[in-house]
């Protein structure tokens, strides 16, 4: 092998100047890979089943439209209104999935994001491609947030479809007792779905951080979901009221305030601030960990 042979011209000139479209290339690949997985589709299927079950149950329970009385406080107050207006199934379904099903699905996807790739060994090939550690982490976080949005929209859209099929639609009454048009109600439903999706941002960052700590996808998923359950329990213990405002799930149910007239913003804003804080803290921690980590898997 002579040295003359070994000095190929073109390859050595362009020493990796990234082209403008590449980041989207990796993100698109990541989105396709995530949403093509059987596991992702199964999670979305479970989420889609919740509004269907709730809608059918309410329909069977109330028989021929005799308005049922009572109903639990807070979010699920919506449930009593479903028989009058199918749109309330959207609010009910989001209130039913937000405490556990939605965050659990997000915990699975976020926890698996890095650890799952490490587990499969594909992480080392992405990094020698070279994906770049910061770029890969950002892509993973963006994909996890996309999953939060898609998962929430799946619940909302299925709820709307089932609500429209089984119940009448029309103008609706807000929690404050005022009437708003169906169109405005639909707008609020969309806004609520976006707020619910945004409520999951903090957990997504936490899950991503956990995912950088281990080479086992299962361990990362279990840890994230375990943290979710722990936080939900802590949020119920009255003696811990001092720390509760800092738990990522504390203001989750504030989305119901969007159904007041006028909208009561305080808790909604606090929720978004808290999510931003979690995203900043655990996002930075994930970055610090992942960019310094030895990739031995």
């Amino acid at each position: 092998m002579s040295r003359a042979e070994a000095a190929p011209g073109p390859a050595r000139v362009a020493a990796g100047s990234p082209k403008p479209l590449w980041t989207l290339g990796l993100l698109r690949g990541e989105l396709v890979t995530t949403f093509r997985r059987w596991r992702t589709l199964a999670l979305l299927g479970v989420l889609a089943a919740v509004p269907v079950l709730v809608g059918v149950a309410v329909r069977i329970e109330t028989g021929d439209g005799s308005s049922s009385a009572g109903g639990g406080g807070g979010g699920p107050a919506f449930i009593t209104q479903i028989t009058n207006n199918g749109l309330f199934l959207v609010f009910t379904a989001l209130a039913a999935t937000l405490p556990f099903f939605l965050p659990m699905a997000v915990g699975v996807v976020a926890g698996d994001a890095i650890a799952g790739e490490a587990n499969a060994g594909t992480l080392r090939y992405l990094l020698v491609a070279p994906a770049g550690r910061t770029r890969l982490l950002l892509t993973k976080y963006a994909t996890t947030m996309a999953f939060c949005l898609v998962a929430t929209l799946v619940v909302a859209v299925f709820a709307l479809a089932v609500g429209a099929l089984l119940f009448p639609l029309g103008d609706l009454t807000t929690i404050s007792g005022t009437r708003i048009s169906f169109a405005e109600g639909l707008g609020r439903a969309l806004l609520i779905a976006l707020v619910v999706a945004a409520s999951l941002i903090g957990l997504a960052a936490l899950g991503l951080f956990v995912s950088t700590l281990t080479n086992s996808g299962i361990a990362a998923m279990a840890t994230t979901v375990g943290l979710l359950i722990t936080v939900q329990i802590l949020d119920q213990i009255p003696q811990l009221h001092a720390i509760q405002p800092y738990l990522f799930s504390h203001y989750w149910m504030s989305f119901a305030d969007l159904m007041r007239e006028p909208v009561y913003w305080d808790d909604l804003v606090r929720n978004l601030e808290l999510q931003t804080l979690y995203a900043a803290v655990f996002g930075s921690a994930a970055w610090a960990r992942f960019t310094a980590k030895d990739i031995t898997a």
Partner: protein
Amino acid sequence: MDEVSATQPERAARGAEDCVIHTRALTKRYRGGQLAVDGLDLTVPAGSVFGFLGPNGSGKTTTIRMLMGLIEPTSGTARVLGHPMPRSSRAVLPHVGALIEGPALYGFLTGRDNLLRYDAADPTADPRTRGARVAAALDRVGLTAAAGKKARAYSLGMKQRLGLAAALLQPRRLLVLDEPTNGLDPQGMREIRSLVRELASDGTTVFLSSHLLDEIEQVCTHAAVMARGRLVTQGSVAELAAGARGRLVVTTPDAAEAARVLKEQAVADVVVTDDRVTGEPPERDLAEVNAALVRAGVRVRGFGVERASLEDAFVALTGEGFDVAG
């Protein structure tokens, strides 16, 4: 300081031309305390097919991971294509194709989709030519027919070839192949080796780790030998084999008498097997040794020095067999 630590771009470029990989006192101690690579000084010339030889556990994969920026050295430096690693990963790695500790694939994606994903991960890869490059890489490793199958349905040999295809998505200046024939049947091994030769003849430098001596002897121009994390030797394969002295072999029906005479003639380590007597050749002229045999009435059928193999070189260097793990 020497030429590799020069910082001017031209000098770095010239360094890249002359040696594709250059490490200096490269050391890795894992968190568990295991010293996996110990003060490695490695120089891989451009255009070589460089065999990185060592028994299991001798630190080959650890070295490769440091070269590819996957793990941080505990101390020492590594330069690949003239740039320091892991700092210059973004500039260096697009020119490097790698197969590290076996292939890793997304089982739920097809072979083609696996390559599309890996290619999308490279910021320098042009999305407009992606499809064509993926097809060409699949063709090169003979997987075109199976490209639409889910990767989990691939055999080990097919997975290995798909891993190689991922390393060949772009024209590369360096290919790093960590035990690429591991787990393959003889036919698969031959295929991979002929592919390596083909790539090398295109001018790509190939850095090939292996624990198989004959593999290195068959395909490599240069080699380095590792044992327990330390570099034992490096150089061209011909030099390494020449470094170990051959053995004097005498074929004779009078083996016992021949052995006695050879010992008299200062031949060390005399071994008799049937009609073959072998030993380490002495410093003196071998014609004298032969004459002494004939004078003693030994009927000599054959007399000569057998060329040493790389294995002899390894045994000579480490004083132990090659199978001994670190």
